């Protein structure tokens, strides 16, 4: 490094002097800035690939190493134990946890898309006083930390809250260990983003199309679901995929609103923690479960990434 930098110093004094390789590279880069940009791109790309993909590789290394050998790990697995991917299903019914995650994700996505479609229609296509203020309020909710809602929601969903109206006292139902205490908070928390995406999309559908549908014989709702939603398919897909992934990845409510049993609608988070025994901690099984748990979302993103990217940017750029 020192003789390279001296090369630059000498080179700047006298162009005829011989230079180090870095000096030559710098000189070329000055003449041709594209080279510099390209190398910057590679550096950044490699950095991101390493930071995002290395943990995944590390999971694979740990999964393939037999549990008793996991200590002082290097970059390669110590041993090769692919049976771990079968053992993990034998030890814990992980497929049930995954099923729970899917059910929670799909239910939430359906609820969010339905409500966000109605809200997106209102915000994107109607004019009424206080609209921007309301929109701001909705977006503000999405910035709240979920922890802020935990205690009241926990009290509510475990049946510890009672409301008195005159003589009648209604206590909230005990929903602990059912999907409801997860689906409701998820829907509320992930709605704002979907509303925001769908508002931009629905706002861009020409009024004439909705009018045409209404004259042809639909109600406003009919026009929304027969014309506006199909024409906003990229936006709806984006909102749906993002919501599903967010729910699938959610930890907080998923962990706290059930007792961690597959029969209590606990999702994969609980499934992975379930491997923890009283006398051992099977890191290899946990790693294998993590990989299996990540796969569906990874596949979904790969399939839908073009849609997501075009959906996110189209909202901002179209017309």
């Amino acid at each position, binding site marked *: 490094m020192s003789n390279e930098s001296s090369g630059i110093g000498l080179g700047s004094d006298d162009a005829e002097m011989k230079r180090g390789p870095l000096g030559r590279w710098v000189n070329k880069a000055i003449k041709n800035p594209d080279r510099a940009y390209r190398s910057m791109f590679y550096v950044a790309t490699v950095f991101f690939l390493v930071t995002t993909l290395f943990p995944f590789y590390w999971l694979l290394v740990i999964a393939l190493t037999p549990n008793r050998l996991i200590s002082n790990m290097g970059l390669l697995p110590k041993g090769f134990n692919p049976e771990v991917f079968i053992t993990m299903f034998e030890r814990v019914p992980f497929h049930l946890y995954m099923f729970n995650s899917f059910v929670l994700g799909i239910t939430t996505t359906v609820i969010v898309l339905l409500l966000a479609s109605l809200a997106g229609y209102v915000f994107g296509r109607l004019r009424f006083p206080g609209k921007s203020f309301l929109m701001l309020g909705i977006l503000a909710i999405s910035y709240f930390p979920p922890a802020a809602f935990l205690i009241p929601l926990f009290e509510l969903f475990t049946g510890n809250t009672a409301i008195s109206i005159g003589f009648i006292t209604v206590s909230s139902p005990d929903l602990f260990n059912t999907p409801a205490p997860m689906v409701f908070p998820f829907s509320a928390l992930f709605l704002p983003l979907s509303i925001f995406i769908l508002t931009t999309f629905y706002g861009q559908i020409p009024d004439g199309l909705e009018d045409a549908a*209404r*004259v*042809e*014989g639909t109600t406003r709702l009919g026009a929304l679901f027969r014309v506006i939603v199909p024409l906003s398919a990229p936006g709806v897909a984006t909102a749906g995929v993002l919501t599903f992934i967010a729910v699938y990845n959610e930890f907080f409510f998923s962990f706290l609103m059930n007792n961690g049993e597959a029969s209590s609608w606990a999702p994969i988070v609980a499934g992975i923690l379930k491997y923890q025994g009283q006398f051992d901690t099977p890191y290899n099984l946990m790693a294998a479960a993590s990989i299996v748990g990540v796969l569906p979302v990874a596949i979904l993103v790969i399939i839908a990434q073009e849609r997501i990217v075009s959906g996110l940017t189209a909202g901002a750029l179209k017309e």
Partner: protein
Amino acid sequence: MGDVKLEHVSKHYDDVTAVDDMNLDINDGEFICLVGPSGCGKSTTMEMIAGLTIPSEGKVFIGDREVTNLPPKDRGVAMVFQNIALFPHMDVYDNISFGLRLRNYDKEEIERRVNRAADVVQLEGMLERMPDEMSGGQRQRVAIARAIVRNPGVFLMDEPLANLDAKLRVHMRTELQRLHKELDTTIIYVTHDQAEAMTMSDRIAVIDSGQLQQIDPPLVCYNEPANLFVAGFIGSPSMNFLDGEVTEDGFVSQNIDVEFDPANLGVEVGRDVTLGIRPEDVYLIEDEHLVTNPSHEIDAMTDVLEPMGDEIFVYLKLEEDAETHLDEDAVATNDQLLMSVAPDTDIEEDKDVSVLLDRSKVHLFDTETGKAISHGIESGIQASEPTGTEAESDD
């Protein structure tokens, strides 16, 4: 079944009145054009008939039913939109059958009707196409087919030809007239293009600032405009207007006087009036033999010539330093006159000429209210000479 009635209909937005106390009575089977400048409320009027906008006051009737608060789907109307508004995610067949499918017609009936509608607008063999694979004229025909397939009592057309090129527009105009003859349904047609209104409609409803100005057959609107606005709006180029006053001898203005007996027209002396005369009713002195009821000679100077092929528009300056105002609507230009002459007329720019007006085609309006006072001046200095033509007769 297809008669439409608006009773004292108004529409107010926050601080604007889009439509102000509109009364319309449209008969079954009639072709009515709503014309007016942009923003005059004609589209709002149509939307209130369609049900897309609910009026602030007044009632709307279609057939014998009051439909003021009914949603569009229950009004039995069909509409063709300015931007055509085909559903881009459906092919032509699905577009045309959209309304029928919503009403749960059975498959065969839908197919029979769609084929017939496609037949009427000459779209055979294109039912599988998507809207973005079609030309503007074809899309417009699909939109019309979508409207006629339900056999509605009333057709609403909101500037359906505005987005087409000039040639196609003229073609579609004839198509629409043919369609009207074939279907014999009420058509309410909104346009800002007075040529479309003149050529197609049974009656024209001229609207300005949300108010109905006149509703009459096209030639009546042309020959007997009810007020200054209609006079200036109908006809292209616009009518000439001169501000003046009524005296014992007739109309007196800055540069042009027209003699008449105020008593005969029922105008009191001293009233401010605006005289209107169409470019084709201004003649060169050489053509005096064509005019049965000429005014006296007017000295002028030619300014700009606009040869149109079938006629020449001549801008005349009545004063030396008059400025040319090209194409201003309904503005009295006292120092300027627009004349149209035959294309073979020997005329040059910047030459002194003498012109005269056909007094039987002179319109007088009250300057203050804009209301028409008279169309054509029959009697005057040549009262002894019988006038051969009726004031209201066509050219």
